[in-house]
């Protein structure tokens, strides 16, 4: 079936299977479908009509309507439109049909709904725990409304996670959760034959912190941007921007132009610092420590710029509903322009010498291949997708803030290996520096904050922002009294890490860190909730039970 020309036609095509279709706001629709029709409708939308799978949200709506809500958000980036497929699951029912056989990337989302809400995905090929620790008691579902945010259930004492077992004779090399090469804890299991990786398995959940539950229980709209900023240590500003975008979409308020431009400048500053950090880390992972030192030396100037504009090197604290909290004075603007031109010059001379270094480039070439079909099938986002030939960027497709006034390119490479992703990121740094310079030169005058009067309850907001790692999606259902009813954060690494297995198989152990690193995993972004501190995975060392007892005391 051909892609319809307009989204109206799209809705027409899908409406035959929908119970109700509402237009939430411009370019955002909601289709209510029956639970049983979900696989069919989503299969059609995802495979035949080429939608991108953005996120899936489960909400406990039993207090309002005696059922659970399941929202599947799909986006069409050529049209800049978002369609939400909603299904209701009755409380006594407790299960829903899994769409994983048609939409391969829905794997983790369904496991997360099972972990946190207790709804069973029927037909899922491997519904093991995703984020909950191995010794979590059954029947305890953290995101249900009757589970208070500071409840700590007792441990069951069992530590069995069913890792996959191969029938061939292979040795198992654990990678993480404690490893020098990883900034954040995650556990990969490599099944190796000599030096070659035959298969891998993944276990996450070590950094799960309870952000969504906390926001529902204790915080209001003015405070959530601050906690959103602390979801991630590298791309925090993107999360707070995304949340605020979702709420401002609900309130349908127009924020002042100057505030939009300042937000754009800060988003691009974050992109530059994140990519420079990644380039340094990638150099370190292949053993090229000089590259690490040099890239981070250039990055220091960007951190200085951020500190001057916002008061802090990280966690800018600049976003508030309705604008930004600080203005950029004329002196600071001139100083920023000077710093940006310095950084551009230093970065260009560095990247020229580093990318022509054969020992470095040779380590990155031809490893970690991801084909364009796989990239499309798993809906990967960000430089991982752009390195495999998929040209998708939220800044161009769903324009927000001041990006429609600025002139920039989206670099795309087609080889699909680690080197392609490196080149994409390297070019993105130059583009980002050019955007900051354009924005600083032609920023309009005016106020930086506008007031939001009233944000209606029970409305849906979706925020889409291009984080350095890909598409960041925040889904909000607003609640009464300036609180949120449901807030779901889908960080880009969530989509990208699911293809790690495809990229790793067939390569040697020496390439494993750089392949995983090329996804630029930001595990803190990916895992956002559970109040309990967990520690699992490495079966050779001390027993986790001993650790847990220490925790409880």
């Amino acid at each position: 079936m051909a892609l319809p020309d307009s989204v109206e036609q799209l809705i027409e095509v899908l409406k035959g299977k929908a119970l109700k279709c509402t237009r939430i706001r411009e370019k955002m629709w909601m289709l209510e479908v029956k639970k049983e029709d979900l696989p069919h409708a989503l299969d059609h939308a995802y495979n035949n009509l080429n939608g991108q799978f953005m996120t899936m949200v489960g909400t406990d709506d039993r207090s309002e309507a005696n059922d659970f809500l399941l929202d599947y958000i799909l986006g069409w980036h050529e049209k800049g439109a978002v369609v939400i497929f909603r299904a209701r699951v009755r409380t006594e029912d407790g299960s829903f049909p899994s769409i994983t056989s048609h939409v391969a990337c829905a794997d983790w989302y369904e496991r997360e709904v099972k972990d946190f809400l207790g709804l069973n995905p029927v037909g899922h090929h491997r519904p093991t725990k995703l984020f909950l620790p191995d010794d979590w008691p059954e029947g305890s579902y953290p995101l249900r409304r009757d589970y208070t945010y500071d409840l700590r259930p007792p441990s069951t004492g069992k530590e069995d996670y069913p890792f996959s077992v191969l029938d061939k004779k292979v040795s198992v090399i654990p990678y993480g959760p404690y490893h020098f090469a990883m900034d954040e804890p995650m556990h990969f299991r490599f099944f190796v034959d000599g030096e070659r990786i035959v298969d891998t398995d993944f276990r996450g959940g070590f950094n799960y912190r309870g952000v969504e539950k906390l926001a529902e229980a204790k915080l209001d709209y003015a405070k959530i941007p601050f906690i959103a900023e602390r979801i991630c240590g590298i791309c925090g500003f993107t999360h707070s921007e995304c949340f605020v975008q979702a709420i401002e979409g609900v309130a349908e308020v127009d924020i002042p132009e100057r505030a939009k431009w300042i937000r754009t400048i800060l988003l691009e500053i974050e992109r530059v610092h994140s990519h420079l950090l990644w380039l340094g880390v990638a150099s370190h992972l292949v053993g090229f420590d000089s590259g690490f030192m040099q890239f981070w030396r250039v990055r220091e100037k960007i951190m200085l710029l951020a500190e001057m504009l916002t008061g802090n090197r990280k966690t800018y604290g600049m976003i508030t509903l309705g604008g930004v909290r600080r203005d950029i004075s004329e002196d600071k603007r001139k100083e920023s322009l000077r710093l940006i031109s310095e950084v551009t010059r230093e970065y260009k001379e560095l990247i020229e010498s580093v990318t022509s270094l054969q020992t470095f480039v040779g380590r990155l070439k031809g490893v970690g291949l991801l084909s364009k079909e796989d990239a499309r099938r798993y809906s990967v986002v960000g430089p991982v997708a752009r390195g495999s030939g998929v040209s998708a960027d939220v800044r161009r497709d769903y324009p927000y803030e001041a990006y429609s006034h600025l002139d920039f390119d989206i670099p795309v490479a087609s080889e699909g290996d680690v080197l392609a992703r490196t080149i994409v990121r390297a070019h993105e740094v130059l583009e980002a520096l050019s955007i900051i310079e354009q924005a600083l030169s032609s920023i309009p005058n005016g106020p930086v904050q506008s007031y939001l009067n009233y944000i209606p309850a029970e409305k849906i907001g979706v925020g889409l922002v291009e984080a350095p790692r890909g598409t960041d999606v925040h889904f909000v259902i607003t609640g009464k009294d300036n609180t949120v009813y449901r807030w779901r954060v889908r960080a880009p690494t969530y989509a990208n890490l699911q293809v790690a297995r495809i990229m790793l198989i067939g390569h040697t152990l020496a390439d494993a860190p750089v392949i995983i690193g090329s996804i630029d995993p930001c595990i803190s972004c990916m895992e956002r909730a559970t109040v309990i501190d967990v520690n699992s995975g490495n079966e050779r060392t001390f027993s986790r039970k001993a650790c847990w007892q220490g925790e409880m005391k």
Partner: protein
Amino acid sequence: MKGVLGLFEVAIRRGRITFKYPKKKSPLPEGLRGKPEFDFEACIGCGGCVNACPSNALTLTDKEDVRVISLFYGRCTFCGRCEESCPTGAITLTDIFELASFTRKDLETVAEYRLAKCRSCGNYYTTDKCLEDVLSAYNEAITDYDDVLKNTVFVCTECKRRAWSEKLAEMRKEGVVHE
């Protein structure tokens, strides 16, 4: 320049970037968000900062006739909302960021304020300093100055509500105010 020579050139041209901290410190920009500090003279104990703090670093407890406002730097996120919401400018963010210490006690600042009694019901309702601040804003040329003060400033919210609803009921009975 390309390759290894290029790296050499970069290394030589840029010189030494690191320096020996803490003997030498890096220059701080103005507007750095460091630790918030109280100016105890200006603070009136209203609790606006406590309301605004997103991470519960600032807490307020009323015990008998004392109000305790405590700021614990271990939870502070240096966001600056307390500074924005303070009516008297008593809490401001300095540029001190080196807060490591060996004891938890070093990281806590505690302020205590005396509470005033409501003249109608006798409960403690606000701090003495809040009352002073409000009184300093009143113009003495208001007629019935003492009367106004007695009914609005020196009584607590509950008593005010009760007094007004009684007065409203009276006015309705007299036909002054209609339903």
